């Protein structure tokens, strides 16, 4: 009887502890608890910010598509093409800001507020009645408020031909040139229609790790702007120029375009003499990608291993030689493909698997 009482008391005490100190009960659940609290706090902060925004002190120097009243049909403000398309883009395009008429209906008061109305600075470089100069549309240096909707797989389907054809250009070649010689001179569309070899390597603020300077041709370009879209999607082929939402999805957070590609193997260059294979030979998952949001054109180590795993030449660094050196000295930094911030990390399982078969 006494034993039973003791057991019941112990259970009750443990249960009470579980209710009162859930964070201590288990680490994983403690994290979940903390995350829950963080979310609650974030929610409260967001609500506070929202209520602050409702205060009269509105910032008219920034335009946001997220404002409810700015979410009407796109063509109520944006005209396609804009009057300046020939001089600005060279092809029918939305190449300028909406006219005053789009804003003044609601913001007349702000337009005439003071000698230098702050609302003018959204589009105009100088707030002056004598200077109508505007920023480049659509302020390319600023983060976008939209995500791009782009079904990558569909585009690969329509650009790919059928059956046997030896005349496909390698996408590692600059657009319009052909690695696989095409005697007929025909130009086939493929990855290279959107992804060209970058002639000048972009450098991030602060430079690359180890002051490494990737040579020209290291990266590929990605389409930016309407130039790569409107040649097919201007009219009839949906989404067309007047269906902005077909490609642009309003994002609740600012979207910053990557100006410099992020790479684990920074020392790989697309323009390398031996790197003339088709894109999909290395980017083995790219044809199954349905969207560009979160797209990572990853290349598994097996793609590199076909050439770089081993070598009979002892002077050449290979995956094998670096793997062995790391085995002997844990502080060894793999440098054939990586800069030091990646090369000093623990050897990933994918790399180890190359030598465990």
């Amino acid at each position, binding site marked *: 009887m006494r034993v039973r009482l003791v057991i019941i008391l112990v259970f009750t005490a443990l249960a009470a502890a*579980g209710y009162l100190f859930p964070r201590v009960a288990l680490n994983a659940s403690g994290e979940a608890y903390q995350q829950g609290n963080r979310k609650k706090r974030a929610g409260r902060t967001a609500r506070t910010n929202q209520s602050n925004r409702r205060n009269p002190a509105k910032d008219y120097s920034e335009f946001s598509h997220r404002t409810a009243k700015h979410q009407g049909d796109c063509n109520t403000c944006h005209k396609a093409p804009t009057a300046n398309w020939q001089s600005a883009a060279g092809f029918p395009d939305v190449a300028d800001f909406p006219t005053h008429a789009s804003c003044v209906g609601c913001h007349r008061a702000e337009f005439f507020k003071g000698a230098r109305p702050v609302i003018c600075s959204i589009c105009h470089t100088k707030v002056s009645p004598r200077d109508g100069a505007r920023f480049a549309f659509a302020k390319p240096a600023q983060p976008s408020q939209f995500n791009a909707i782009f079904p990558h797989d569909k585009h690969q389907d329509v*650009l790919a031909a059928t059956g046997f054809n030896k005349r496909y250009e390698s996408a590692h070649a600059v657009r319009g040139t052909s690695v696989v010689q095409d005697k007929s001179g025909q130009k086939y569309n493929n990855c290279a229609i959107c992804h060209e070899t970058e002639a000048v390597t972009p450098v991030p603020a602060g430079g690359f790790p180890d002051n490494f300077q990737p040579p020209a041709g290291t990266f590929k370009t990605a389409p930016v702007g309407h130039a790569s879209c409107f040649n097919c999607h201007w009219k009839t082929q949906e989404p067309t120029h007047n269906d902005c939402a077909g490609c642009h999805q309003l994002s609740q957070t600012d979207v910053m375009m990557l100006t410099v590609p992020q790479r684990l193997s920074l020392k790989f260059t697309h323009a390398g003499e031996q790197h003339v294979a088709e894109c999909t030979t290395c980017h083995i998952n790219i044809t199954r990608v349905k969207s560009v949001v979160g797209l990572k054109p990853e290349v598994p180590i097996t793609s590199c291993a076909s050439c770089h795993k081993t070598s009979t030449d002892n002077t050449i660094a290979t995956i094998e030689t670096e793997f062995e050196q790391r085995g002997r000295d844990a502080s060894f930094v793999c440098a054939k493909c990586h800069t030091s911030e990646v090369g000093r990390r623990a050897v990933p399982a994918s790399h180890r698997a190359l030598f465990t078969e």
Partner: protein
Amino acid sequence: MEKAKGKSKKAKVKRAVLPSSLLPFTFLLLPFCLCALPVVAHAQANETQATGVVRLRVRPKVNDKEKGLARKRFYLIKGGLAENKELLEKINRQTIQTRECYYRNIKASEAFINWLKEGDCESVYCRTVEEKYLTGASAVPEFQAAYERGAKEYKTPELGRLWLTTNLTDELRDGFYRQKQAALKALISEAEIATKAPVLSVMTDRNGTAYFTDLTPGSYLVTNLLPVEFGDKTILWTTCEVKVKAGTEIPFLMSNSSYKNVKCVGVEKPLPACDANRQTASN
């Protein structure tokens, strides 16, 4: 001895008493169970990371010589032949117009059909329309008309040529592609409902190689869902079952005839002749 027996009996009685006496208090363990859930889920997530890879190689034989089937989409459906029997029957019953029959049916010019054939293209997007196809003996009437409209509309002849597809009719431009996509979409949707798993797809490279990665171990079917046009024949693969094992890359060779290492042979049929009436390539 009897004393010992008596002790063990007592112990048995105690053990038997414990669970029933604690029953009313089991609800008190609820917070512990809830706390343990993320740990279990985490462990399960780790288990699911043990995946496999299928290295697909599609190399049909032409004139007794094998060649990679380039730029074709293949699909991976969860489950083996037995589980997907109904779906496979549906795939085999599927009828789709051949490329040539489609374009003849919409009354495309002979020059247009030849331009597509020349580049083995399914749609106008597959290659650039060079100037020689806009004027002179090699001119393609559909291109010529679209070019002339575009040159006026876009103010420059070059833009008229580069944006030529914007002035083609929907049927000419991508009607064949859309027709195939509609059939594929219906089959994929049916497969996903039946298997309760997404259908994966990859496109073969120039050598006919493609990879399905991050696959959970189990049986899968590899198929092209619709017959692929291949010279004067069509090929459909519907009986290709592959077993994926964790941590391994399974080489899977597919062809139109059986030779060394071929794991699956597709059904080959001649392309149907096209006449004025609508022709379809049935399986």
